[in-house]
C-alpha cells in the first residue's frame, strides 16, 4: 500500500467496512408511504407540480427544478399524493415534502418512455437530459450534476475524475456499485466525457477495495482513455480537493472550484445513474444504500427508493440492537445524527449508520495540551488549535480572515485525533452557521 498516491495529512479511522462489503445489494420492498422533500439537493428547492389526490406513477415528475442550481424530484413509487406538508427533514427541522400513499396493488413497473440514444444527443443537451432526470452528486453533497457538467467557459475541464474512494468508514455503497454495475459506471463516464467534450478520465479507488479495482480493470472498455488509480487508504481521500491532489498532484486554489485546475469530480454512483437515464429512461429514484453499524441487527446493502422512512428501513433490517446509541445518515466522520425515525431517505443518503454504545464512546473534554495532532491531521493545512480557541471565544471575524474558516470542509479529522476530545469540527460547523446568520455588511 506504500507508494500509492495520496494527499498530505489526514487520519486513519477504523474502516469497519467488512460489516457490509460482502453483501450484494438487494431490492428493498416498497414501503406503505414515501415522503419526498422538495429540497434533496444543494440549491433552490423544487416546485411541487402535483396536488393531493393526484395519482402518480413511479418515475413521474412531481416537482420541477426552480432555476439553474436546483433539481427535479420524481415519484419513487406509484400511488396517490396524500398531502404536501412540512415533514421532518434529515438535515434537521421541517421541510415541505410530498407524501405519497404507495399503491399496494401496483406492480411498480416504471412507465415506458422514449429514450434518446446518448450518442445522438448533442453535447449541450446531455446536461439538460441529466437535469430532467433529477441527478445530483451521490457522494454526499447532492450538488446538481448538470451544473457540474457545464463548467465556466474560462476554465475548461481537461480530466474527468471518477471518485470511487469511499473514504468514509463503514459505508460500502460505492464499493457495491463498482462490483455490481461496472458497465453502467463506464457508460456514465462516456456520457460525462461527451458532455464535457474531453476524452481523459481517471478513476480513483482506495486500495482497501482490491476487488473493486480488479472489477473495474477487467471491465474497462479498450476504446476509453481511462486510468484506474489505486490510492492510499486515508480519510478524507474522497474529498474533491484531496482526490485531485492525489491523482493530478495539483492543489485546487483556495476558494476555487476543481475546474480551476481543469478537473471535474464525479462519484461512481452518480456516473452509474447518469447511464441509467439513457439506458432505461428512468430518473434518479433509488440507489444502493448501506445499512450498517453494530447497532442494527441485519446490516447489508439495499436498493432503496428515496422517501422511504428511516423507521421502515430499521424495521426491515431486523431492528435496533439493545445497545444502539446513534443513528446517522452518512458515515461516522461527516454524517448527520438523526433525532426522528420519520425522516425520509434522500438522494444523497449513501448509508445509514447505527452505532452501538461501544462504537461511539464519549469521553470528557480536557484542556488543549497543544500537541499539534490536529495540525498534522488537517488535509487543508489549517490550524484547528487556534481556530478552536477563536470559535470558542466567538471571534468569528478573525476566524474567517486570519484562520481561514471558509477553507474548512468540516471533514472532522481534527476532532477525530484530538486526545483532549475538544469538539473542534463541531465548533467550526457552529461558527459557519452563526456567520450565515450575521447580517452581511
Amino acid at each position: 500500500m506504500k507508494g500509492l498516491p495520496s494527499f498530505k495529512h489526514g487520519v486513519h479511522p477504523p474502516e469497519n467496512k467488512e460489516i457490509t462489503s460482502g453483501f450484494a445489494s438487494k431490492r428493498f420492498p416498497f414501503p406503505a408511504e414515501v415522503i419526498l422533500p422538495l429540497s434533496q439537493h444543494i440549491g433552490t428547492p423544487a416546485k411541487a407540480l402535483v396536488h393531493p389526490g393526484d395519482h402518480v406513477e413511479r418515475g413521474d415528475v412531481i416537482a420541477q427544478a426552480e432555476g439553474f442550481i436546483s433539481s427535479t424530484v420524481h415519484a419513487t413509487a406509484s400511488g396517490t399524493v396524500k398531502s404536501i406538508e412540512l415533514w421532518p427533514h434529515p438535515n434537521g427541522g421541517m421541510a415541505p415534502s410530498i407524501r405519497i400513499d404507495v399503491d399496494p396493488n401496483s406492480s411498480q413497473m416504471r412507465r415506458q418512455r422514449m429514450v434518446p440514444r446518448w450518442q445522438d444527443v448533442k453535447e449541450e443537451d446531455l446536461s439538460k437530459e441529466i437535469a430532467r432526470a433529477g441527478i445530483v452528486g451521490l457522494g454526499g453533497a447532492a450538488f446538481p450534476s448538470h451544473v457540474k457538467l457545464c463548467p465556466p467557459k474560462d476554465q475548461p475541464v481537461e480530466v474527468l475524475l471518477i471518485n470511487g474512494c469511499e473514504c468514509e468508514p463503514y459505508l460500502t455503497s460505492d464499493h457495491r456499485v463498482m462490483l455490481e454495475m461496472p458497465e453502467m459506471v463506464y457508460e456514465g463516464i462516456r456520457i460525462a466525457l461527451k458532455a464535457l467534450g474531453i476524452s481523459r478520465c481517471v478513476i480513483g479507488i482506495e486500495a482497501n477495495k482490491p476487488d473493486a479495482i480488479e472489477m473495474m480493470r477487467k471491465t474497462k472498455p479498450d476504446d476509453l482513455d481511462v486510468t484506474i488509480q489505486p490510492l492510499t487508504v486515508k480519510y478524507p481521500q474522497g474529498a474533491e480537493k484531496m482526490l485531485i491532489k492525489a491523482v493530478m498532484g495539483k492543489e485546487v486554489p483556495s476558494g476555487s472550484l476543481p475546474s480551476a485546475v481543469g478537473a471535474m469530480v464525479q462519484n461512481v454512483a452518480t456516473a452509474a445513474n447518469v447511464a441509467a437515464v439513457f439506458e432505461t429512461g428512468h430518473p434518479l429514484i433509488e440507489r444502493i444504500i448501506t445499512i450498517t453499524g453494530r447497532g442494527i441487527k441485519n446490516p447489508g446493502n439495499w436498493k432503496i427508493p428515496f422517501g422511504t422512512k428511516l423507521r421502515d428501513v430499521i424495521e426491515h433490517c431486523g431492528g435496533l440492537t439493545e445497545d444502539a446509541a446513534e443513528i446517522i445518515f452518512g458515515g461516522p466522520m461527516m454524517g448527520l445524527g438523526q433525532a426522528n425515525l420519520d425522516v425520509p431517505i434522500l438522494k444523497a443518503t449513501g448509508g445509514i449508520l447505527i452505532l452501538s454504545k461501544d462504537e461511539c464512546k464519549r469521553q470528557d473534554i480536557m484542556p488543549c495540551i497543544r500537541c499539534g495532532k490536529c495540525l498534522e491531521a488537517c488535509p487543508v493545512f489549517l490550524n484547528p488549535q487556534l481556530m478552536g480557541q477563536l470559535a470558542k471565544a466567538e471571534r468569528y471575524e478573525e476566524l474567517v480572515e486570519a484562520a481561514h474558516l471558509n477553507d474548512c470542509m468540516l471533514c472532522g479529522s481534527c476532532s477525530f485525533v484530538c486526545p483532549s476530545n475538544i469538539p473542534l469540527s463541531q465548533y467550526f460547523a457552529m461558527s459557519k452557521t452563526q456567520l450565515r446568520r450575521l447580517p452581511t455588511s
Partner: protein
Amino acid sequence: MTETNIKITASPHVRSADSTVKIMWSVVISLVPVIGCSIFYFGPSAILVLLAAVAGCLLTERLFGSNPGSVSDGSAMITGLLLGLCLPPGFPLWMAFLGGFFGMAFGKIIFGGLGQNIFNPALVGRAFLQAAFPVAITTWPAKSANWWSLQGDNLALPFMSPVVDTATAATPLGNLKFGDDPVVTPLMDLFFGSTGGSLGETSALFILLGGLYLAYKGHLNWHIPLSIFVSTFVISGLFYALGISQFPPLFMLFSGGMMLGAFYMATDMVTSPITNKGCWLFGFGIGFLVVIIRIWGGLPEGVMYAILLMNALVPFINRATQPRLFGTSGKKKEAKS
C-alpha cells in the same frame, strides 16, 4: 422499537483511541526504566527524593488545581518525576518537596492549569531550587559502598545547615569544566550510567529507550530531540574542531541533562511549538544555547536554562511558523478581491 436510548450528536461521531490522560500515563510508564536505573545506582535515596518531589507536585495540584480530578490526569505525576530525576541523589527531601510545590504552583497552576503554562513546570521547580539552594543542588555525593545507605543529606531539616559532611564527587561535566585534572568521561560510562550526576541524568540508554517508545506511540514529537541532537552535535563539533572548547561533541550529547532534557523536558507538548517546522527551530535553539552555556556560562550544565529560554520564545515561533493553507502559495497577503 425502543427509541429512548438514541443520542444525537454532531459529526464526527467516532474518536481516535488516543486521549490526553493516556498520553500522560504512558509518559509516566516510559520513565519506569529510568527510575529503576536511578534506584539501582543511588539506592533508597533515589526513591526518597523522587517521592518527595512527586508528593510536592500532587499535593499542590490537588489543593490548588482547577478541579479535584486533575490529579488523576497524570500531568502532575510527570512533573514530579521529572523534577525528581533532575535533582542530585543526596538532595534534602524538604527542598525536593518545596521544588515540586513551586514548580506546580508558579510554573503551571498560576497560568490556569493544564495546557495554559508557558514554561515547563518541572524546570521551573528546578530553576527555583537552583536559585534558592545553589549549594545543595550542586552537591554530588560520592558513591557509598553500601547500596542501602542514604546518600548525602536527604534527611536534613528545613533551614538547618547540613548535618552530614559528605564526600563529594564531580559530575562528568563539572569535572571537565572546573576540575583540577579534567578528563573526558568515557562514552560507555555515560551511556550506561555509571557516573555521578542527578538521578535521571546518568543513564542515556534508558532515557533513549523511553523516548523511542514514546516517539513510536506518537506521544512525543521526534523532531524536537532530533533537532536538539543535530544542532548540539554540529555546533559543539565545530567549536571542538576549532579548539575553542574542550567538550567533544559526543560527550556533549550523552552527558548531563541532555538526554532527559531533549526527550522529556523539551518535548512537553504544552510548552513546545505546535508545528513541526516550529519544533525544528525550537530544538535548534535549545542545542545552540546548551553549547553556549556549557562552554562559556558560569554553570557546568545549560540544558535547563536553554529549554526555559526557548519555552519563552514558543508563542513567537508559533506565530512565525503557521502552516501554509492548502491551495495557496503561503504568502501572508493573498490577493483576495
